[in-house]
C-alpha cells in the first residue's frame, strides 16, 4: 500500500489528500487484479492452446448467457463502488468550512496575484496560516488557467467570467508548489507559484515585512528573484535582445527616448516610476502593455530591482 502510494502519488500535505489517495489506491488494486486476470488468461491460453497441426478441432461455442451475465455484473458492481466513492469524496471537497481563511487569487499570463483579507498583496507566493482551512477564490484576467496544488490534491480551472474556488487544510507547515494546469500559452510551464503554510508568527511577519529570507538577502539578489518570480522575465531580457519590453542589459545610466518625444537618463527614480506607473513614460519602439506593480511589490523589492538593474552592465 505504502509502496504504491510512493510510486504514484506526491506527498500528502492536506486533510483531503488522504481521502483522495484512498480511492486512488483502491482503484489501483482493482486494476492490478483485473489486469493480472486478463494478462494471465491471454498468456496461458496462448501457451496451452497453441496450434498442434492442421487437424486441430475446436469446440463451436457461440455464447453462454450465465457466464456473460456474471462477467458483466461483477464489473458493474465494482465500478459503481468507485463511482459513489469518487463522487462522495468530491462533494466533501466542494464546500469550504465557514471559518476558512479567505484569499483572492487572480491569474493572468503568466503570474498569480494574491490578495489577503487585510489588503496585502503578493505575487506568485501565497502565505497562509497553519491550522485553519483556507479558501482560495479564483478568477482570471485573460484566458483560462488552472490552480493546481499537487500535494493538496486540489485543482480548479480559473475562468475569466466566473469565480471558482478551492479549499484545503494543510496538515503540516511548509512550502508547496503551485502549478498552472490549464494550457495558457508561452510561459504556461513557468506559471508557477509557491504556497507557504506558515506558523502564526511567520505569517504575521510575512504580512508586516514580506518573507523572512528577504532580510538577509543582498538587494541585487532580491531584485533577481523578483525579476523571475513577479513575471518581469516574460517581457524583459537580460541579454540585450528585444522582447515585449526593453532588455535590462546596460540600461542604467543610458538615456532613453519616449514616444512623446521627451528623453531621460535611466536612474533610480526613473526605474521606480517605470514600475509604479509604467504608462507615464513609454519607451520608444514599445507599446504600453506593462501592468502596474504598485502595491504588488514591497518597498524592499523595488529597491532590489533597482540594484539588480544597476548590476546588469
Amino acid at each position, binding site marked *: 500500500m505504502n509502496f504504491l502510494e510512493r510510486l504514484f502519488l506526491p506527498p500528502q500535505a492536506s486533510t483531503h489528500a488522504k481521502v483522495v489517495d484512498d*480511492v486512488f489506491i483502491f482503484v489501483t488494486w482493482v486494476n492490478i487484479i483485473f489486469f493480472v486476470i486478463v494478462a494471465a488468461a491471454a498468456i496461458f491460453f496462448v501457451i496451452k492452446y*497453441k496450434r498442434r497441426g492442421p487437424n486441430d478441432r475446436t469446440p463451436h461455442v457461440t455464447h453462454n448467457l450465465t457466464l*456473460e451475465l456474471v462477467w458483466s455484473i461483477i464489473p458493474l458492481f465494482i465500478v459503481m463502488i468507485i463511482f459513489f466513492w*469518487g463522487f462522495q469524496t468530491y*462533494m466533501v471537497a466542494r464546500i469550504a468550512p465557514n471559518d476558512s481563511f479567505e484569499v483572492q487569487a487572480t491569474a493572468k499570463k503568466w503570474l498569480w496575484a494574491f490578495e489577503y483579507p487585510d489588503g496585502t498583496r503578493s505575487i506568485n507566493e501565497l502565505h497562509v496560516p497553519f491550522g485553519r482551512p483556507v479558501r482560495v477564490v479564483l478568477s482570471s484576467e485573460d484566458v483560462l488557467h488552472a490552480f493546481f496544488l499537487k500535494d493538496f490534491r486540489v485543482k480548479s480551472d480559473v475562468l*475569466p467570467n466566473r469565480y471558482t474556488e478551492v479549499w484545503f487544510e494543510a496538515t503540516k507547515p511548509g512550502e508547496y508548489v503551485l502549478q498552472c*494546469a490549464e494550457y495558457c500559452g508561452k510561459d504556461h510551464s513557468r506559471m508557477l507559484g509557491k504556497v507557504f503554510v506558515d506558523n502564526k508568527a511567520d505569517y504575521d511577519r510575512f504580512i508586516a515585512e514580506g518573507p523572512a529570507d528577504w532580510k538577509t538577502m543582498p538587494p541585487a539578489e532580491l531584485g533577481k528573484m523578483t525579476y523571475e518570480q513577479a513575471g518581469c522575465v516574460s517581457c524583459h531580457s537580460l541579454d540585450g535582445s528585444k522582447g515585449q519590453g526593453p532588455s535590462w542589459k546596460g540600461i542604467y545610466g543610458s538615456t532613453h527616448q519616449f514616444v512623446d518625444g521627451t528623453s531621460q537618463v535611466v536612474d533610480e527614480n526613473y526605474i521606480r516610476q517605470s514600475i509604479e506607473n509604467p504608462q507615464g513614460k513609454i519607451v520608444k519602439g514599445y507599446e504600453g502593455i506593462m501592468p502596474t506593480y504598485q502595491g504588488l511589490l514591497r518597498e524592499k523589492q523595488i529597491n532590489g530591482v533597482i540594484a539588480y538593474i544597476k548590476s546588469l552592465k
Partner: protein
Amino acid sequence: MANATSTHTHTGTSQPQLNYLTENTSLKDWLTTIDHKRLGLMYLAAVMAFFFVGGALALLLRLELLTPKQDFMDSATYNKVFTLHGAIMVFLFIIPSVPAALGNFVLPLMLGAKDVAFPRLNLASFYVYCLGAIMALAAIIGGGVDTGWTFYTPYSTTTDGPVGLMAMAVFVLGFSSIFTGINFVATVHKLRAPGMGWFQLPLFVWGIYATALIQVLATPVLGITAVLMVMERAFHIGIFDARLGGDPVLFQHFFWFYSHPAVYIMILPGMAIISEIIPVFSKKTVFGYRAIGFSSVSIAFIGFLVWGHHMFTSGQSDLASAIFAFLTYLVAIPSGIKIWNWLATMYQGSIEMRTPMLYAMSFLLLFAIGGLTGLYLGAISVDIHLHDTYFVVAHFHYVMMGGTVIAFLGGIHYWWPKMFGKMYNEKLADIACWIIFIGFNVTFLNQFMMGSQGMPRRYWTYLDEFQRYHIGSTIGSWILGFGLVMAAGVLLSSLRKKEYDAGDNPWGSRTMEWETISPPITHNFEGQPVLRHGPYDFRVEPTPATVAGGRH
C-alpha cells in the same frame, strides 16, 4: 470444382489475370478511380504519411523534454509543435485511419459487394480530405498554431497565428469523415450478399457501422463549433467571449460533444479489427457474437452522453459532473465485455501466433491498461488531481495508440496479403511488433507515474523531480519510433517481390474477402458470391467464391 484452387494461384495459369492493381495503371486512372480498393490504398498512403509526420513531431517533443532547460526549441515553438502533433494525429491520422483506409478496402469485400454504395462520393470524400490536409499544411507554413488540438477559448480566439485556417481545415476534414460515414451506412444496409443477414455480418462490419453512425451524427457539431470559434475570432460575435457576455466553457461543451464520441470513432474500428483477428488465429468461432456487436452499438450510443467527464474541473455543476461520471462508468462495461469475449474465444482454441495475432495480443494488454486507468479518471475526486496531467496523456495514448494504432497495424498485417498478394517477412514483422510493444510501454508507463505525481501536461519546462520520468519516456520514444519504422520497412520491402506469393486465404479465414483472389480483381468477385457459412464458422473448410459464381 477440381481446378477451383488453381485459378486463384494465377502464377500457374498461362494468362495472368489482371487485378485491381494491374488493370488501368495510368496516373489519371488512379486519381479518378472510384474503386474502393484503390481509394483505400490512397487513404492508407495518406494517413501513414501523416502518422509519420505526427510521430516525428512527437519525437522532437520528447527530445526537448529530456531536460527541463531549453534544449533546442523555445517554449513558443514547443507549443506549436505539440498542437500540430495532436491535430495531425487526431484529424489527419487516427480518425480516418481504420475506417477510411482499411474500411474502404475491406468492407465491400466482406459484404460480397462490388463497391461501396456511392463510389463517387467516396472519391469526393478523399479529395475533401486532401483539401483539408492542404489547408492544415498551409496553416503550418503560415506560422503554425499554438492553441492545442482542443482549441479552447478564449486562448484560441485571442492568440496570434492562422488559427482560423486551421479550424476551417478541421471543418473540411469533418466533411470527409461524414461522407465516409454516410457511404458505409448505406453500403451495410444495401449491399450485403444474398443470405447475409445482420447477424451473419463479420464483427468488423458491426464496428465500422457503429463508427459510421457516430461520424454522421457527431461530426456536424464539430463543424459548427469550429465555425463559431472562427466567427468569434473574426467578428467577436460574443458566443464564447466573456467580455461580450459569452461563455468560454460553452466551447468546451460543444467541443467535447463531438470529441468524446470521436474517441469511439477512433477505438471502435480498432476493436472491430481485433474481433476479426482473434477468432481467425484461434480457429474458433467468436464467443458472444451478439454481445460484441451490440456492445459496439451501445458504446456508440452512450458515448454521446459522457462528454462532461472532460470537464470536472471546469466549474460545471456538481449534478452534471455526477451524471457524466455515472454514465462514463456505464460505458466502461461494454468495452470490458469485449475483452472477456476475446479471451473466451481463445479458450480451447487452436492458437497460432502469426504476426496479426501478436498485434492482437499486444492490443489486448495495452487496451486493458488504457481502459482500466480510465477508472481513475471517472472517480471525480481522483480526476480533480489527475486532470490535465501526464496521467491523462498516458491514459489516452494507451487507448488511442496502444488500442487503435496497434489494432490498425495488426489489421494492416492481416489484410496486407489480400491487398497486395504478397507476404512480408513474418519473423522480422514479429520482432518489430515486440519492439513497438516495449518502446510503447517504456514511453507511457513513465508518463503515468509522473502524471499522478503531479506533472501537468503541455509543459515545456518542469520541476527537477520529474526529470527521471522524462528521461525514461524519451528513451522509450526512440525504441517505439525505431519499431514503427522497422514495421513499415518490413511491409514495404515485401512489395519488391515479383510474384504473388501470399495465396488467397493465407490465414484460413472464413469471411468473404478471402474468397476472392489476392489481390482481388477490379470487380472484387467473379459473379455474385453467396453466403454459405457464418463469418467465424470453423467447422467448414473455406471455399473460394468463384465456385459459387459459376465460372467453372
